[in-house]
């Protein structure tokens, strides 16, 4: 049970909800070890969570390597924020709707989006977003490049679900930078006014490219932005999978039960450059990054499952191998996609084709011939 669900209490929470300390030990509260949620004793679930987190990390490493060799384009690593996105993916039910942002590789993977389609997307191919997720509702949203605009879509989808009297919830993620944009603030306000079944998760990784958290807002917490819209809001240690998973489960369950929206501010840190096109050493000190490494989610969680006896060295080696195998296969699958025909740019613009554009399709074909003959 989430203890502090009144909006009033939630925004006055002075420390983010946390179960695992930085090294992976369960935190001490008062004189004793803090009581864990029940699911934290579920070996299968915990192992699954760890696998998704480390697969996400392996995927990130591979993607960065592919970018360096020109096989895909600019890529935003999620290094150090895997717990947030994986918890999102795992807390969602099949029919819920995921409205992620571009750093949510983990969530996409958990939702059943294939790695080759993710590579396709980052390789500059629209078909990367054409793939129907294995277990998704069928309308998980594609990556949304204009920051924070997905928040409006999330409230729209949530409103549709409510009108259609469906029982699903919507989960929308965004960054700390995105929390300054009017789209998000207006969407929060609408979610509060219309009491929509939507959960917002801010991945507060402390940076928006080179802009630090303190320039984004004078507010002590970003969670407060939810309270100002009449939405229960909570700060959570985003590097603690157990805390994230607990809160997201509750928040989504509330939403599914039509008890209204929630906002979760997940405190984390962007260990990588913003994207492969960025050089973070220009604007932030290495010490800050080093310090953040000591709190990263994956090692912490690995320690926990080791301690619980859910995992060991051997399992780790096997799984890392497995990840690499999956990745090699996915890269091969990605590379086997031939580029679309030039005329594909017209194929999905309109369902009902305006015949006045026939000329342009012909011109496109001629252009191809002109530029590719000889």
């Amino acid at each position, binding site marked *: 049970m989430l203890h502090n669900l009144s909006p009033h209490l939630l925004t006055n929470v002075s420390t983010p909800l946390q179960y695992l300390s930085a090294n992976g030990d369960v935190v001490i509260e008062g004189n004793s070890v803090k009581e864990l949620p029940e699911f934290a004793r579920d070996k299968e679930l915990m192992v699954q969570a760890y696998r998704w987190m480390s697969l996400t990390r392996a995927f990130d490493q591979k993607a960065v390597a592919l970018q360096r060799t020109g096989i895909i384009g600019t890529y935003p690593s999620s290094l150090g924020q895997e717990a947030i996105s994986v918890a999102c993916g795992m807390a969602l039910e099949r029919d819920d709707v995921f409205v992620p942002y571009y750093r949510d590789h983990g969530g996409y993977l958990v939702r059943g989006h294939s790695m080759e389609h993710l590579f396709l997307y980052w390789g500059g191919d629209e078909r990367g977003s054409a793939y129907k997720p294995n277990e998704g509702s069928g309308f998980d949203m594609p990556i949304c490049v204009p920051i924070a605009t997905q928040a409006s879509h999330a*409230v729209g989808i949530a409103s549709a679900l409510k009108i259609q009297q469906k029982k699903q919830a919507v989960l929308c993620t965004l960054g700390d930078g995105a929390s300054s944009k009017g789209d998000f603030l207006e969407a929060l306000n609408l979610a509060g006014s219309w009491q929509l079944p939507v959960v917002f998760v801010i991945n507060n990784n402390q940076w928006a490219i080179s802009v630090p958290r303190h320039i984004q807002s004078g507010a002590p917490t970003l969670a407060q932005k939810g309270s100002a819209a009449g939405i229960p809001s909570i700060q959570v240690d985003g590097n603690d999978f157990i805390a994230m998973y607990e809160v997201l489960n509750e928040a989504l369950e509330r939403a599914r039960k039509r008890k209204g929206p929630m906002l979760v501010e997940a405190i984390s840190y962007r260990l990588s450059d913003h994207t492969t096109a960025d050089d973070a050493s220009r604007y932030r000190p290495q010490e800050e990054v080093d310090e953040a490494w000591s709190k990263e989610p994956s090692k912490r969680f690995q320690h926990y499952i080791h301690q619980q006896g859910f995992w060991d060295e051997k399992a780790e080696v096997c799984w890392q191998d497995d990840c690499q195998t999956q990745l090699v296969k996915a890269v091969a699958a990605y590379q086997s996609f031939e580029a679309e025909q030039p005329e594909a740019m017209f194929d999905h613009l309109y369902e*009902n084709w305006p015949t006045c554009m026939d000329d342009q399709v012909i011109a496109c074909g001629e252009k191809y011939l002109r530029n590719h003959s000889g």
Partner: protein
Amino acid sequence: MNTNYDHQLEEKHNICLVEAVNLALRRAMLDDESVVLLGEDIGVNGGVFRATDGLQEQFGISRVMDTPLAETTIAGTAVGMAVAGLKPIAEIQFMGFIYATLEHLFCHAARMRNRTRGRLTCPLVLRAPFGGGIHAPEHHSESTEALFAHIPGLRVVIPSSPARAYGLLLAAINNPDPVIFLEPKRLYRAEKHEVVDDGKALPLDTCFTLREGTDLTLISWGACIKECLSVVDGFNSIADSGLSIELIDLATVNPIDFATIEASIKKTGRCVIVHEAAKTCGIGAEIAAHIAEHLMSYCKAPVKRITGFDTVMPYFRNEQHYMITELDIEAGIKTVMASSF
């Protein structure tokens, strides 16, 4: 809930343009329960122009939704609703307040189908009253349809009579892609015409040839059609004017039905385009450019645009000096008739 409503179905109505909008909305909501409305003051108040009058009462607050005052979210929410299987019809109270919606319309509504290679679609309609001549405050008179016409993936549709408002709005709602539906508010209550509430949509992407003629092709849309009709009927009916003018209502201002325009200009050899919007990069520019590229050898005289000036619409005390009159159109037609290469 108006329980008598069903009896009126398929009846003829003698109504004005804004009532035709209302009738089409009502019809669409009756026929398809995925149609929902959202916007400012569209509920109990029925819209500041009464376009949604009575609809919340009839269909309930879950299908006719007053929003907070937030245009960005009105558009963005409509995108989300459309993706999720509804057919949202969003109202922007005046076109002058549409700019906050553009990011969502340009980046998302226009692209969702293409971005996902058809996996997700965005069948929304965004309605807004537009144009000047009603003595309104600043920002209540804009005609910036060309902004939308420049963005691939959007359809821009403008009715110019009650019947076309009814039929084109139904077409916009049926259309599986986003439509910007701009309503000439100067015509909202200008005239009553007969409209049959038969649920039949008119075709999109098609001009309407309102008058046939052989000497000059006059192209316009929206409120200016009123003055054009009067001028054309004047010329065509006066035997000794010696002039026969073809009047084309563009109706879908993007994508443009150039086939109809080409056929007309090949016949008449002369073209005048009338629009209230600013001249530079307006829809008139696209039509004239198309003529310059493809039809000049059929032309007996230069093309002429009669448009708003490239200036801010004056506040209402002086807006008359901006608005296009019948005399302006008449004079333009005479100039083109008198000129040749």
